[in-house]
């Protein structure tokens, strides 16, 4: 990756070739005279880095830094960044020039300049936002006792901090702090910038890019559990089972240990850890992350991975920032149907494909529905799926509890239902509607849950816009199961059979949960009563 001095210059090898090949072919080019260069090589002799000062024709010194990798007997540049040094005494002037060049239009939008001083108007907007959030929780949170939180005290404590906030970032931290006092999931402040990344016909979508790598916490390590084909991760040769040791400047084992200690009492620790690790591997499309891994031979390898447009369909739902929804389905060698998807959203895609999948697999010996790392969504989709898999009469899966209302979640069987063996794969990143699905199917069918306990983030929520332009996700409802009469929030859904990923299996190219699912389905065909619970 070549980072130029213009903000838009993020050249990959491919785009650089596209630009430069015709230039070089014409016999022209340019020359840069290096006046100073320092090169360093890492202790393993595989990675090096350099810094240099060169002189341009305009006479302005250019500073360059980069990373090189030793490959096939050659040193190759994997990252190259150019910049101009700006004397401190003119930084403010240059900043003005940059703002001017970028245009003033963005300044009209509240909350755009997180680090700029709040205008009077913006300050008023964050005051109104704070009041709205505080009142909304007081008046509409499903539990009128607000879970025992002293809400008045929270306001009294945080209001002065809001008044003292000098930037939008500081004000947002106060809003974040306010909703975090509820200590449950499904509360968040979504920065207004997230909405400005939404695509339009004239402005391409800028969803969070991905590397194609999926990681989980395995023991004391962050381990690669999947690498999707045709992604930067796959092209770099990264394999499941490798241990992720560094993302950019972050030392992963050290960070993991610290966070674990600090999250000791947090009921959502598992999902926070897992999602934090994965989120570090994402960012703006076109940028890159540099990661270090411990490979199958316990050798340290480093790769700089481009962030590519995430797979799936770009979906917009209300005030949720745009996200991707994808579905993956196949028939395994033994005729078992396998269906995986990342969110209970966009019924035309998810339910459309699931309905077809069920129709195609009505005679299959078994079905595996994989909701690992499923981010949840609409409970109605979960209910609709269960309708394909349940027998007998319609039944309540539990109830949604609002402040002054309770609603039953009723599943009713489809006209034709599947009566073969069903396995649902879950893990600590199965969240919200995915957990509701797991719990519902466990109760309404003979399906088996395999994997690890789900996240325990099961509340109904809605998202509104605040006066300062931020989004406000608000937990409006609790979910109570029909069979136990208990909430899943902070608890999650335990599997019938615990199967967690382990490094050796991953290195051997296996997915232990899928293997366990296939084995259980086979057992059902020969000995249906053998459930081999490992609770």
């Amino acid at each position: 990756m070549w980072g130029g001095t213009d903000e838009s210059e993020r050249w990959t090898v491919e785009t650089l070739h596209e630009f430069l090949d015709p230039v070089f072919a014409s016999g022209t080019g340019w020359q840069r005279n290096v006046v100073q260069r320092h090169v360093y090589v890492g202790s393993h002799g595989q990675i090096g880095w350099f810094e240099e000062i060169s002189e341009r024709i305009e006479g302005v010194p250019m500073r360059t830094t980069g990373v090189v990798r030793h490959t096939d007997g050659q040193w190759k540049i994997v990252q190259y960044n150019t910049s101009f040094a700006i004397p401190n005494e003119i930084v403010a002037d240059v900043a003005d020039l940059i703002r001017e060049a970028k245009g003033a239009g963005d300044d009209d939008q509240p909350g755009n300049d997180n680090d700029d001083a709040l205008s009077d108007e913006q300050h008023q907007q964050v005051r109104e936002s704070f009041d709205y959030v505080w009142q909304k929780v007081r008046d509409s949170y499903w539990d009128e006792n607000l879970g025992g939180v002293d809400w008045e005290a929270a306001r009294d404590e945080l209001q002065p901090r809001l008044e003292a906030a000098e930037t939008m970032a500081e004000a947002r931290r106060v809003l974040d702090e306010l909703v975090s006092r509820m200590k449950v999931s499904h509360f968040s402040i979504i920065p207004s910038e997230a909405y400005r990344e939404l695509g339009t016909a004239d402005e391409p979508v800028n969803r969070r890019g991905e590397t194609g790598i999926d990681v989980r916490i395995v023991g004391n390590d962050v381990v690669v559990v999947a690498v999707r084909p045709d992604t930067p991760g796959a092209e770099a040769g990264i394999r499941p089972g490798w241990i992720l040791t560094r993302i950019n400047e972050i030392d992963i084992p050290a960070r993991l240990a610290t966070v674990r200690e600090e999250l000791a009492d947090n009921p959502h620790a598992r999902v926070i850890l897992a999602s934090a690790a994965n989120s570090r591997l994402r960012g703006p499309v076109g940028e890159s992350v540099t990661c270090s891994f411990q490979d199958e031979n316990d050798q340290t390898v480093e790769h700089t991975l481009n962030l590519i447009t995430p797979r799936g369909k770009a979906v917009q739902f209300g005030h949720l920032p745009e996200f991707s929804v994808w579905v993956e389905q196949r028939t395994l060698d033994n005729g078992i149907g396998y269906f995986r998807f990342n969110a209970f959203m966009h019924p035309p895609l998810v339910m459309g494909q699931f309905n077809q999948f069920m129709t195609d697999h009505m005679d299959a010996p078994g079905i595996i529905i994989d909701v690992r790392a499923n981010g949840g969504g609409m409970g109605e989709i979960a209910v609709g799926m269960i309708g394909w898999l349940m027998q007998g009469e319609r039944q309540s899966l539990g109830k949604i509890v609002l402040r002054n209302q309770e609603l039953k979640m009723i599943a009713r069987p489809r006209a034709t239902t599947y009566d073969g063996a069903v396995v649902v794969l879950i893990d600590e990143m199965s969240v919200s509607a995915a957990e509701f699905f797991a719990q519902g199917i466990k109760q309404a069918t003979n399906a088996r849950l395999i994997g690890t306990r789900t996240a325990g983030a099961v509340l109904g929520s809605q998202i509104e816009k605040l006066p300062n332009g931020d989004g406000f996700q608000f937990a409006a409802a609790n979910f109570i199961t029909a069979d136990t009469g208990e909430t899943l929030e902070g608890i999650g859904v335990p599997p019938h059979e615990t199967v967690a990923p382990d490094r050796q299996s991953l290195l051997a190219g296996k997915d232990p949960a899928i293997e366990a699912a296939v084995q259980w389905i086979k057992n059902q065909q020969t000995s249906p009563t053998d459930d081999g619970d490992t609770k």
Partner: protein
Amino acid sequence: MKIMKINDVKSICRVTALLAVVVVATVAASTLTAQEPESAAPPSDLPTGKQVMDRYIEACGGEEAFGAIKNRYSESTLEFVGQGIKLEIKTWATRPNLIYILMESDITGKVEKGCNGEVFWESSLMSGPVVHEGVQHVMGVRDSTFERFVNWSDIYETAECVGMTEVGDHNCYEVVLTPKEIEGMEEEGAYHPVHLFVDDTDWLIRKMNSAIEIPAGTIDVEALAGDYQEVDGVLLAHRLQMNMLGQQRLVTTEKTEHNIDMPEDRFALPEDVQKLVDK
């Protein structure tokens, strides 16, 4: 350290369970029919329920104008206020109680609801075909009545004016419509009364309070009617703000056509719904 905060769950919880109970409701002006039931006796200083309903019908165009309307096609928007969610709805309706509602969006997929006069059904990608039974059947068939507040005496036993109350800036008579019992249909919850609030100056319905029964339970709905516009000689509310489940839903009607050519099978049961009926 940033990742210590509970709110970091937000990155995955933003895709979140929503309470997507979608209720499609319409408010329509109407006219009286020939057979009129006796209204309950009101307090001495109030008009009878029937008198209020008569004034309402007259204010909206009168019996003759409504009688000339044989069917209706409308296009509306259902907005979940404050949540950035809008759904487009198309409705076909005709006498006596035939209705077909179509909603298509990325949020819901294709959702259909209908009543062919005898069967109240719905179908969606999520639920598949469903034939409603019990309370939902009774309410669905009854509330599909074309111009149900004009033809109120067809389906309501009594109209009782019980008092006056303010709805916003409007001083309104409160009229309680009590549904007729249907033989063989004694399901609890099928006969919730409807409270209409009729303006004592212009005689338009300003508010309607009722309870609706869905499989999930009973939901109290307050519906505020407004933006009355004349279409083919009758006044129709083009704006309906519904307050329910602690949220606001806004139905805005953009297009209304009367007496259009409707295909004969417009209200026929879809094949998969018919299969369920035949089962």
